[in-house]
């Protein structure tokens, strides 16, 4: 298979290939009369030489994986500069998202800001306003934490009904990385908070260095709890699109607060009520009033495979159903899966014990009988919260809410293995 494009790695390719082979194309190792030529004949890779160690100083995935990429929805925004793309969660496994395919959301584009040009200011109600260089930040005691970052608008397009046909598009505004950085409370202590007096009603305003000047207000309690000023992700420097050289992590809270290219932290008496915390990222209810400060991301899950972009490519028999679950209020304790649209549920196996504010991977290994399925997953977190249905959410919020849609998702898996995004009664 020397073709650069493996026909089975794209959905379109899958459809063509299965049509040509009568639907059972991928039962690999199928016996040929004279044996499988991939085994019985000498293959070029088994005779000639491969690339040397100097060929790839920094590697990208092999060409056969070239469809495992971020994708965007052009009609969603006026311009790709102030827009969002989606993580290919349908094609990933485990829990860590590689930086190169982790979703991006920019308000004025991703900027190139070098470590040497980087400055971080702390000002406002502090004892001594300070300026740090990048090198200064690396001299503070640092920590490692795995956190998910989910855009508040993830699944927002689905609020009105089943719209986008793929887990990447319905649930891909999320990534999960291991961050290295300095707790925000460490930097605040360095500047001194005696000047702020009673801290219980104080806020910090955090702001980015890009042209959007994206800024959010965070209550002091959260700022002193687990907010991290991060400079590494998955062991390496942050990618440009994730805020190189320094971004904020606000564990469990909506992605817009995870300010990239962090340049300023101001201790304040109250919230700034910036554009992104008033006109956007607020949730309008049925009576026209809107919720604000809806920072926390509630428990949620989705089956990533099978799904519309990851159809079943084999016939009946052993099938791995897998997906992701997460909660901004605690660790994932349990995930249930239904194959009949929510009539009956069975508890899935977690890949590892749930970690607070990080993705969990779940698996349900079944013997598929080849009949249609209405696949759903339902997450439960350590607070006892159970992921609701869309109908339950609409009951409370009405039809005009956009953000924080954490409803149960349904994939209609057909007999030929294809799947479609549907809404069910």
């Amino acid at each position, binding site marked *: 298979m020397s073709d650069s494009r493996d026909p089975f790695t794209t959905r379109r390719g899958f459809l063509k290939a299965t049509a040509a082979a009568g639907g059972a194309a991928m039962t690999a190792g199928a016996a040929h009369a004279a044996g499988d030529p991939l085994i019985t004949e000498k293959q070029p890779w088994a005779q000639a030489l491969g690339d040397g160690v100097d060929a790839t100083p920094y590697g990208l995935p092999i060409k056969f994986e070239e469809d495992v990429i971020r994708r965007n929805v052009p009609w969603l925004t006026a311009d790709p500069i102030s827009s969002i793309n989606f993580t290919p969660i349908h094609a990933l496994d485990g829990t860590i998202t590689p930086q190169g395919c982790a979703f991006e959301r920019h308000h004025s584009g991703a900027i190139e800001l070098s470590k040497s040009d980087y400055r971080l200011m702390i000002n406002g109600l502090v004892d001594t306003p300070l*300026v740090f260089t990048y090198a200064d930040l690396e001299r*503070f005691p640092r920590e490692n934490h795995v956190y998910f970052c989910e855009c508040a608008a993830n699944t927002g397009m689905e609020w009105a009904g089943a719209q986008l046909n793929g887990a990447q598009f319905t649930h891909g505004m999320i990534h999960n990385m291991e961050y290295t950085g300095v707790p925000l409370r460490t930097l605040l202590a360095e500047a001194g908070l005696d000047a702020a007096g009673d801290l219980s009603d104080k806020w910090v305003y955090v702001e980015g260095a890009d042209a959007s*000047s994206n800024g959010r207000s965070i209550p002091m309690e959260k700022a002193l709890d687990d907010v991290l000023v991060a400079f590494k992700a998955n062991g390496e420097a942050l990618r440009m699109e994730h805020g190189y050289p320094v971004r904020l992590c606000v564990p469990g809270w909506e992605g817009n607060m995870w300010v990239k290219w962090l340049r300023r932290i*101001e201790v304040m008496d109250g919230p700034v009520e910036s554009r992104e915390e008033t006109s956007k990222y607020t949730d309008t209810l049925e009576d026209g009033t809107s919720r604000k400060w809806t920072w926390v991301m509630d428990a949620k899950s989705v089956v990533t495979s099978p799904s519309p972009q990851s159809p079943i490519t084999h016939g009946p028999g052993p099938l791995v159903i897998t997906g992701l679950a997460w909660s901004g209020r605690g660790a994932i304790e349990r995930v249930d899966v239904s194959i009949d649209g929510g009539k009956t549920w069975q508890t899935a196996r977690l890949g590892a014990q749930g970690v607070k504010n990080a993705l969990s991977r779940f698996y349900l290994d079944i013997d598929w009988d080849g009949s249609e399925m209405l696949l759903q997953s339902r997450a439960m977190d350590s607070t006892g919260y159970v992921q609701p249905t869309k109908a339950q959410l609409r009951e409370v919020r009405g039809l005009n809410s956009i953000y924080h849609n954490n409803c149960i998702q349904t994939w209609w898996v057909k007999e030929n293995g294809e799947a479609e995004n549907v809404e*069910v009664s």
Partner: protein
Amino acid sequence: MSKYRKILMGAAAGFALAAGPAAAEKLGLGRTALPDEIAAWDLDVSPDGTGLPVGSGSVEDGETLFSEACAVCHGEFAEGVDNWPKLAGGDDTLDHEDPLKTVGSYWPYLSTAWDYVHRSMPFGNAQSLSADETYAIVAYILYSNYLVDDDFVLSNENFLEVEMPNADGFIIDDRPETEYPQFSQAPCMENCKDSVEITMRAMVLDVTPDEEGGEDGAVEEAAAVIEEVVEEVTEEVVEVAAVAAPDPAMVEAGEKLFKKCASCHMVGDKAKNKSGPVLNGIVGGAPGAVEGFRYSKAMSEFAEGGNVWDAAALDAFLAKPKAFLKGTKMSFAGLKKEEDRAAIIAYLQSHN
């Protein structure tokens, strides 16, 4: 001692343990920020007016500034172009289906508009507006929302007197009371419902982008269609033979001006329909003729009336699209200057 102070003390104690007994609570890293540095970066404005600089600007000046700096995306009347944000209108729609959220209908604080315009706008040229210019533009946005009169002047002194219609429209996150109790019940495992029906399908809606981007069949088909259209139009132009070859200087001027159009329209070999149709062959061509583009009813009727996009018709349309063709989907406010319109038409003609 508050719990916050304890958290902070805990953090300091953590340093001492980590860095050895010589290190006090602080590591002595960083340097003191200078007043000029703080002034350069600390620009945020709070709802109570904290952070507002001294200054003022009129609706009248704001209209001119808005037209120059903002209208290309937000429309001459702040009504919004395409998917770009609408800044005006939408009053009393928040409890309707698809509410229109604008500065006038939704934003609770005027400080937010001032702060955002001053720090984050115009898109692509942020932090270029002076304080007075910002006051003027914000005054014009208020005027566009019928919140002030046309002789209004906004300043740091009267800033807090402006009443925002939706100031009381927000509540603090109430999920802990309205959602968490009912969503924290033991989940059903068996016989959870009698029947399950599919009520909506994404494939029927079909708005999912194609996996393979610009290389797939649909786009090729669209390109073929466009070629056909171009051929048809070219034939027509030959028949009409009334359009002179464009002046190269005008074409060049038009190419620059076309940036105003390019968020919706494409021209050239690789042109595809965006929120507006491909414009290859539009000069002298038939209206509403690009296949695969859904025209407004008004444009379809205009086409059925046997009209042709000759230079005079295009000139009138580009001057004020909505006045020339009531009901057109083209939300562009129009080009006031005749020479600008002539340049755009010359540029379009170079793609015939």
